[in-house]
């Protein structure tokens, strides 16, 4: 499937159908997630209604890590096979990834103030997650500042690949070090789990954000393909006009 989409024309055909479907699914899932999260899920026994922030905080955090993973893997594919569409995919993941990271940091700080009495602590989880934001910003800065686009793609790709070591650190930081942040409730084996009334909005919002991310990335890669095609056409246009006159 991935190698099929590696052809820009085939990708454009795929995108024409996939993008509206992803947009529709995103709207449905986010709408349903907010409906269930705010109207149909119970308040937490300990934290009360403030636990409802979980339905925007956790999906944003999961999606930011997914975005970084895709960015790092695409950069590796570009490095090994030099496929330009892999580089466009990596580039497309950066901004939404950074946005989700910033969103998770903001909602986490707000939630932390009510739960822990502090907006921030320099513990393993929060520090490594802040580094993730810096990695996204660093990636985008490298691409924006280096004039040679091929060189920018290679250096940014290196940043993405080397920075991927941060992902397992984020994931396991709450197990390795003392942290205010709670340990995994849903995703680890042996985790206590959530009741269905809380798991439903959480998963709906996660899928909603994921479909939104998918829609954004598809559209961004489409736009990059159009821009590259225009650049190629402009390069092929003759810059001098030749006039032929017949001598009679």
């Amino acid at each position, binding site marked *: 499937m991935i190698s099929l989409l590696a052809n820009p024309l085939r990708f454009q055909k795929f995108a024409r159908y996939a993008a509206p479907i992803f947009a529709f699914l995103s709207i449905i899932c*986010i709408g349903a997630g*907010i409906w269930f999260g*705010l*109207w149909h899920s119970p308040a937490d026994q300990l934290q*009360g*209604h*403030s636990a*409802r*922030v979980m339905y*925007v*905080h956790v999906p*944003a955090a999961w999606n930011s890590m997914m975005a970084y993973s895709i960015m790092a893997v695409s950069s590796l594919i570009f490095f090994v096979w030099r496929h330009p569409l892999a580089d466009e995919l990596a580039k497309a993941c950066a*901004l*939404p990834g950074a*946005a*989700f990271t*910033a*969103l998770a940091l*903001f*909602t986490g700080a*707000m*939630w932390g*103030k*009510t739960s822990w009495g502090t907006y921030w602590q320099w513990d393993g989880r929060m520090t490594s997650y802040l580094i993730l934001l810096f990695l996204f910003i660093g990636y985008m800065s490298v691409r924006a500042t280096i004039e040679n686009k091929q060189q920018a793609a290679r250096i940014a790709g290196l940043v993405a690949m080397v920075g991927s070591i941060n992902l397992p650190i984020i994931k396991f930081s709450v197990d390795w070090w003392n942290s205010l942040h709670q340990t995994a409730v849903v995703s680890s084996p042996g985790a206590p789990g959530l009741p269905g009334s809380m798991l439903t909005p959480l998963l709906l919002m996660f899928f909603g954000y994921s479909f*939104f991310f998918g829609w*954004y990335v598809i*559209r*961004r890669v*489409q*736009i990059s393909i*159009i*821009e590259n095609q*225009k650049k190629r056409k402009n390069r092929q246009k003759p810059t001098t006009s030749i006039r032929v006159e017949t001598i009679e």
Partner: protein
Amino acid sequence: MIPEFGKHAALIWICYGVSLTVLGALILHILRLRKAAEK
């Protein structure tokens, strides 16, 4: 119709509001990029 969240109401509405604003900003960004690319 609007649920009551007591002392946490501001926290919840700010977090949900900011989340939807971020998504809206990304949508606007991609629409502007598409408009510029299609010119």
